[in-house]
């Protein structure tokens, strides 16, 4: 093959490789754009469909019977708040306690088992947790209750919170702990006062994220806290919650209820997004240096 033909051959091949490169760049860009379409469509619909129903009544009124317009989701919002508080009472101490054990005590067979278990537990579908609490609490009590819903959400909080606490505390330098111990403080005080409270900001982001996650959970609540068209009457009684109410309204045949479902979804999404963005701000380098 003479040199001219060879170089032509080479440049042709180079051209082909260049073209492949550009085509693939296009494909990658297209894929990224494609993934954003559902997010944009969903946000657009939640906003445009949800805003018209937004008003003071939505936050202060009970649901109206079928056929009557108006009414709100006041009881569902209160229900969700109650559930989140109950869940935090269980999930926060248990999750953070486990996280402390994993990060502050020497690794062993228990911590390996706990880590593995936490990771698997976090990926068990939430409906399974609901079913578990149903057999654990609802069947013996013979009724749906806020307590059962709170326990289900609390269990869902534990593994993620344990792992995030561990991750965050691992970044705390050892000399911080040594400084405390050198002052003669007992270890438990060093862990609680210096390691935990000294990083309260980072820890609180973990808590907020886990709350954001359970606040939108629906499946485990279906057969634990169930639903209720009136105000809740105690922790041992069923109660409405925002996600379950959205579900109930969404699958109903009534136009008016669909409207309410969109407004409920707007509130829920705003709640969850705010918490997510809040954690980003708390964790940003500028935020933590102050």
């Amino acid at each position, binding site marked *: 093959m003479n040199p001219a033909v060879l170089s032509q051959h080479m440049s042709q091949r180079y051209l082909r*490789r260049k073209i*492949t*490169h550009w085509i693939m*760049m296009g*494909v*990658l*860009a297209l*894929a*990224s754009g494609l*993934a*954003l379409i*559902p*997010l944009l*469509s*969903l946000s657009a*619909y939640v906003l445009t*469909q949800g805003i018209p129903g937004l008003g003071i009544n939505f936050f202060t009124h009970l649901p109206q019977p079928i056929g009557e317009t108006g009414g709100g989701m006041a009881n569902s919002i209160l229900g969700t708040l109650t559930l989140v508080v109950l869940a935090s009472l269980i999930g926060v101490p*248990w999750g953070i*306690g*486990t996280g402390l054990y*994993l990060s*502050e*005590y020497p690794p062993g067979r*228990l911590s390996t088992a*706990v880590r593995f*278990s936490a*990771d*698997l*537990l976090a*990926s*068990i*579908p*939430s*409906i*399974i*947790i609901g*079913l*578990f609490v149903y057999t654990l609490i609802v069947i013996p009590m013979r009724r749906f209750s806020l307590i059962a819903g709170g326990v289900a959400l609390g269990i869902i909080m*534990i593994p993620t919170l344990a792992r995030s606490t561990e991750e965050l505390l691992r970044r705390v330098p050892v000399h911080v702990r040594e400084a405390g111990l050198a002052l003669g403080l*007992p*270890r*438990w005080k060093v*862990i609680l006062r210096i390691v935990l409270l000294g990083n309260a900001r980072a820890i609180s982001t973990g808590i907020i994220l886990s709350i954001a996650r359970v*606040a*939108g*959970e*629906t*499946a485990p609540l*279906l*057969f634990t806290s169930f639903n209720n068209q009136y105000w809740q009457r105690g922790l041992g009684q069923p109660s409405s919650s925002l*996600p379950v109410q*959205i*579900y109930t309204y*969404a*699958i109903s045949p009534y136009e008016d209820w669909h409207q309410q479902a969109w407004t409920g*979804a707007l509130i829920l*999404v705003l709640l*969850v*997004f705010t918490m*997510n963005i809040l954690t980003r701000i708390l964790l940003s380098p500028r935020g933590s240096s102050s």
Partner: protein
Amino acid sequence: MSNFRLRKRARREIHLGDLVFSYFLRALSFGLALLLAVIGFFLFRGAFASISRYGWSFVTESVWDPVQEVFGSAPVLYGTLVSSLIAVSIAAPLSVAIALFLNEVVPPKIGKTIGFLVEMLAAIPSVVYGLWGIFVLAPWLRTRIEPILAQDLGWIPIFSGPYYGVGMLAAGLILSIMIIPTVFSISREIFKTIPTAQREAALALGATRWEMMKISILGSSKSGIGGAIILGLGRALGETMAVTMVIGNRAEISASLLAPAQTMASVIANEYAEATSDIHLSALIEIGFLLFVVTFIINAFARLFILRETKS
């Protein structure tokens, strides 16, 4: 008090506080480790009536009729498998492509912003996806997409028969949207661990940027991506609300993706309220137990994959 006794007392006090605290944390951790086993046990106990009555026919029979107390979960298992496979086959290539694009092509700042947006997809509650699915996705499929599929590709069994908007296809699509953030963020983490030198090596040999991605990035993170995809699959299998709202809820095996179907999670969410007989309830709990076992195995498997990747 002698010096010796003072020292002894002080030491004992410190040890006591530490001892109590460490045992308290140990108990919490032990409780967490035990929780999985406890959940498995309670589900098994709840499912026992159904297991002992139907045995293997529970998973092999294909008639699910609560009224006659006949429970064969084959259609439900089929629906779970097919909807999740649709989801994974759409989401896996997309997620890996996004991860590549954001990590290797665009400037870091833009990559970070878009990555944040994609991860926000994971923060949206499942019930909101379901709402969007019922009122936006399903009508769009029914009026725009499915008529074309049925008309032009109707001779293929998977696109045959009547269409309703809601059905297997809608469920698969919504699941794919929901698992993209999972597969994406793990893939991106894996790509980030690949040393720059490995990229530079390929470029120095004259590779184009795409060839570099193929050789240095994709080539060396195969098993990690595999793990990420399996984790996505695990999430798709157990996803409940969005699927329940768009799958049409009919426990029948149909070759057509346009037909309504049922998944393990959706049958539980759908029928728990009307489960009046004990055996129906027990059958639903058995479905839950099976789902628990399947997701347990899949996730344990995926974690081993990813662990192997990050270690090497």
